């Protein structure tokens, strides 16, 4: 246990590395990527060791040598708390971080500011570790804001593009909205329980405080109605999206809820569950109509986060946490494999001098036949997301659905509605994944794109993908491929006693298989003879669905009263509303400010100016004169001294001898 006490050094290493990279960019050498990979790899090893060592003990508290007395009666507990979930989070952050860093070595190779990218990544890892390791809510909040900042910086990494700037700002502001509620919640905790220490808070909070705390989760984990920032955040570099907006940062909200939910009253938890269900269905529906391949995955992330929150809200923390972990594996992997497609298309496009949207799924196809090495990991990962048997995703997601179904014992009839909704969401998930598989991988490629396919796989792409897709298979998580209950996570995290209805799980799996096949068939196998790639050429049924979606799009646009036709209608509408409200608030504050406070400040300002004039006069006349005299003397001395340095050796020798003699005489007499 001695080693564990120096864990906080581990926490500081990514910080130090990030700062070093910011201060000293490595433009030519590949140091930044390689060191990052090694650093995060080391982190994941440490996480693994922690996981092994926390298998027996309930939790370790490490006191840091810092004591932060904030108020007289209240001090922030700066210790670190390590238990089983923490160890898992450290492991997953390190593992996905190192995969993403390795992947970025090639993906970001030609960027001028590559070092800055790695610096942000490293700072993010530091902040994320901070969130999972510290035990005080106030310190969690510090990490919370830091990951928000890193997310902002990474979304806006290509700040030359206006949509990246906009998306970064939107993400930041939306998160602040949730965080404002979170701060109020922390204050409420302090007020009601006298502590913000996670280990000391025991009593149940009132509903309003719990909802405020959930506000933080809502912003960070992109829950309805604050979910719209996440799809727009895809303007950032794809590997960063994989780490931050798929695997770790957005899961921080879930992690917070995981820690806090024992303090929440049941009524609040039910409201949270309802919101989670709306999130699941709403974003799954939106994922079915996206053209941009990354946005599909982003909406799917929102929807999967909804599952985790649903599970935790219905008192199944083990299932929710397990889904967080499996989701980190397969969603990060999906982002990386889709990112590879975008990378190759982008390069081909640049070589040919073409201009089309490389992320539009309708403008490409046939990748399975040309790049099988990329298609196999994608297949595994997509299957995991869709919930196929033998995958990790199926284990955790079906566990959630079953536990929702079984929670009627505690929550009553409403559990069935929630459960049905969750099943519907799972079917939709399978459908849009099938759709994406059909569009990108199975459909015949546009003939002119033959050159876009990579001749040979790149190891920097293959290794992370292989790692993540192997991790998405069932046997790591539970020896029984049909149930999570045999796995260590379930057994460790004190699952509820109720027996789960396994039949529901099997049915969902079968349904998912069917919906996936339907999606893939509808979008992947087009009628013969139609090769136009700008207009979607689709099966009649798919065309109908597409038209329906277009119609739905128009209706939404009409309802929201936005004149400009835009892909991101929904988010812009919400954003405009929020901005308008915010502006009103600002104006009101300004009115208040300019009446009373401004006058006071003006008066003070005038007094200062008069005083400054007086001081300036004294300065010029008296102080400056003295300074000038001193400077003049110094100049004179310097002049005389440097005249001695004549450059003639004989003079040097004479001066030395005479000076030595003078010194001897001076000292001796």
């Amino acid at each position, binding site marked *: 246990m001695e080693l564990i006490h120096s864990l906080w050094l581990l926490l500081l290493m990514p910080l130090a590395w990030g700062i*070093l990279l*910011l*201060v*000293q*960019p*490595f*433009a*030519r*050498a590949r*140091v930044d990527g390689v060191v990052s990979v090694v650093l995060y790899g080391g982190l994941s090893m440490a996480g693994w060791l922690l996981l092994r060592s926390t298998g027996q003990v309930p939790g370790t508290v490490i006191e840091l040598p810092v004591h932060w007395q904030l108020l007289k009666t209240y001090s922030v507990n700066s210790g670190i708390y390590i238990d089983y979930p923490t160890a898992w989070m450290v492991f997953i952050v390190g593992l996905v971080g190192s995969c993403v860093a390795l992947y970025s070595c090639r993906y970001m190779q030609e960027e001028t500011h590559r070092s800055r990218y790695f610096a942000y990544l490293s700072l993010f890892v530091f902040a994320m570790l901070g969130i999972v390791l510290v035990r005080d809510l106030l310190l969690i909040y510090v990490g919370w804001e830091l990951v928000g900042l890193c997310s902002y910086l990474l979304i806006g990494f290509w700040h030359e593009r206006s949509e990246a700037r906009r998306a970064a700002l939107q993400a930041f502001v939306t998160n602040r909205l949730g965080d404002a509620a979170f701060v109020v919640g922390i204050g409420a905790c302090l007020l009601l329980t006298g502590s913000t220490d996670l280990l000391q808070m025991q009593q149940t909070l009132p509903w309003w405080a719990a909802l405020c705390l959930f506000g933080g989760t809502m912003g960070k984990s992109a829950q309805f109605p604050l979910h719209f920032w996440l799809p727009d955040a895809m303007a950032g570099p794809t590997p960063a999206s994989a780490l931050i907006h798929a695997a770790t940062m957005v899961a921080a909200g879930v992690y917070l809820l995981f820690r806090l939910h024992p303090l929440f009253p049941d009524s609040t938890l039910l409201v949270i569950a309802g919101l989670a269900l709306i999130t699941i269905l709403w974003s799954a529906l939106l994922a079915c109509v996206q053209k941009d391949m990354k946005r599909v995955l982003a909406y799917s992330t929102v929807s999967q986060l909804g599952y985790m929150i649903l599970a935790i809200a219905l008192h199944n923390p083990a299932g929710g946490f397990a889904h967080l972990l499996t989701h980190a594996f397969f969603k990060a992997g999906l982002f990386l494999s889709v990112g590879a497609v975008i990378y190759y298309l982008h390069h081909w496009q640049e070589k040919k001098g073409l201009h089309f949207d490389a992320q539009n799924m309708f403008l490409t196809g046939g990748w399975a036949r040309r790049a099988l090495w990329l298609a196999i990991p994608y297949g595994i990962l997509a299957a995991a997301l869709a919930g196929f048997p033998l995958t990790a995703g199926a284990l955790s997601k079906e566990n959630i659905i079953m536990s929702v179904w079984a929670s009627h014992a505690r929550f009553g009839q409403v559990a069935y509605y929630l459960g049905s909704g969750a099943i519907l969401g799972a079917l939709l998930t399978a459908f849009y994944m099938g759709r994406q598989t059909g569009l990108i991988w199975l459909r015949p490629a546009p003939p002119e794109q033959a050159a876009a396919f990579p001749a040979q796989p790149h190891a920097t792409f293959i290794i992370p993908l292989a790692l993540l897709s192997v991790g998405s298979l069932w046997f790591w998580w539970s020896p029984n491929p049909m149930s999570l209950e045999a796995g260590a996570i379930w057994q460790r995290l004190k699952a509820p006693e109720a027996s789960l209805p396994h039949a529901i799980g099997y049915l969902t799996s079968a349904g998912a298989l069917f919906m996936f096949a339907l999606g893939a068939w509808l979008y992947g196998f087009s009628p013969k003879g139609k090769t136009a790639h700008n207009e979607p050429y689709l099966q009649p049924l798919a065309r109908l669905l597409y038209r329906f979606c277009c119609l739905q799009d128009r209706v939404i646009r009409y309802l929201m009263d936005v004149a400009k036709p835009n892909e991101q209608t929904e988010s812009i509408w919400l954003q405009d509303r929020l901005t308008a409200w915010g502006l009103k608030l600002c104006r009101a504050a300004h009115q208040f400010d300019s009446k009373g406070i401004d006058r006071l400040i003006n008066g003070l300002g005038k007094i200062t100016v008069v005083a400054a004039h007086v001081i300036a006069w004294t300065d010029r006349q008296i102080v400056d004169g003295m300074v000038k005299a001193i400077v003049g003397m*110094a*100049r004179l*001395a*310097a*002049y005389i*001294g*440097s005249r*001695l*340095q004549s*450059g003639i*050796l004989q003079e*040097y*020798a004479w*001066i*030395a001898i005479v*000076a*030595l003699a003078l*010194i*001897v005489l*001076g*000292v*001796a007499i």
Partner: protein
Amino acid sequence: MKQLFSNPFIESFAHRFENIYQSVGFLLPEAALLAGIVLLLLLAISTRKAYGLRLAFWAVAIMMASLFAQLFFLVGQLRSLPDEAPLYLMADTLCVFHPLQIQARIALNLGALLFGVVFLFELLGHYRKESVEWLFWALSALLGLDLLLLSAHFLTFYMSFELSSIATYFLLSVGRQRRQHEALMKYVLFGAFASALMLYGISWIYGLAGSIEFTQAAFWQHLQAAPSLWLYIAWALFAAGVFFKLSVVPFHFWAPDAYEGAPAMSLAFVSAIPKVAILAFMMLLNSRMAAFAALQTVWGQLLMAVALASLLLGNFIALRQHNLKRLLAYSTIAHMGTLLLPVVAAGYEGAEEVFLYYWAVYALTLFVAFALAAQQQIDQIADLRRFNHTTGAKLAWGVVAFSLAGLPPTAGFLAKLGVFVHFWKMAASHNLALLLWVTALLSTAVALAYYIKIPYALFFKQESEAGAPAGADAALLPAMMIALLLVLAILWGYPFA
């Protein structure tokens, strides 16, 4: 057989042999250095393609290996010193051991190791073809300095002093351009002049004491009996060589000229490393005469006068300099003046720590400065403006300026503070010392005026965006690491009791 050994000549021979055999162990650190030197020499003459990057890396490897071996033996010696014990441990009449002496030798070794690391990164940046010679002379100078610290006799002192001097001449000549050989020649001649004065001084000392074995009490007793004016003359002449090596007034003339054309890497070695050996030797000498108050007064007053002159002259002339290396040369003169304070006050408790800390900080700062200057090939301070520095390089330059000036966020501040606080113990009861203390304090303020030129040129007078990119970036890494260390050192707080 027994007959043979009872022969007095043979017996004394056998006794001597035994003695030599037993004391070889004390010279293992030097043996390691010597082995490194020989290997470097063999490397230089045995390869047909005399110059090549791989050869250079091999040379660095040899140097590092021999330095590590030396460090290993030195640490062993330090450990084997008895804790409470006689201050001096005589291994033979030719060498003595003392904690400060071994610490100073370790400091020399660590400085050379650091030099090796910076040199390695320098090689990565831009390859220099003279690297084997360079390292050879560096190691030779190191051996000379090491032996100098070991010496117990003015003659051995003189020999090792000359060894290090000659190596230093060559070190400063390597890689120099033709037209700059004039300054070097002056340096060599002036050095010869100074060491002649020193030899003359030693002969005076011999005349006064009848012996030059300064580890013997009899030597000091005889010396004390001599008239004080003769003593002043003898010590002043002896000190000429030492002052030359330290580049303090009035033997400072060589420094600015020789620095100006020398490659920055040589300067990093010459300007920082030898000083610790010379100063430590002077400190040891000073503490030897502790029992002889009259002698100590002579020696102390001499040093104080020189320190006073160096502080004033160095700092004021530096105000007029525009060339970075000349500026650093004058700054060295001033810093040596400051470093003489703990040497003078060696009798007061804690002098060793203050001295070693100050030297270490000063040497590290100079390493950063010269490593940066070497990477970016900067001569004039104005040159700093021409390049597009990375933020890291800018900050490192800033740390250099602040640390040399002794401003708070750096270790330079702690070092200065330590020296001043320590010297106050002496200044409180001694007029000349008080004058020196006040001068040192005030000249620190003067020094600010010229050190600030460096950050000013970097942060406020940047010429254009389209400047040349500055230096190889990975090679700046050690410099920045050291700079960071200099800042972080402040976290450990005031290191002296």
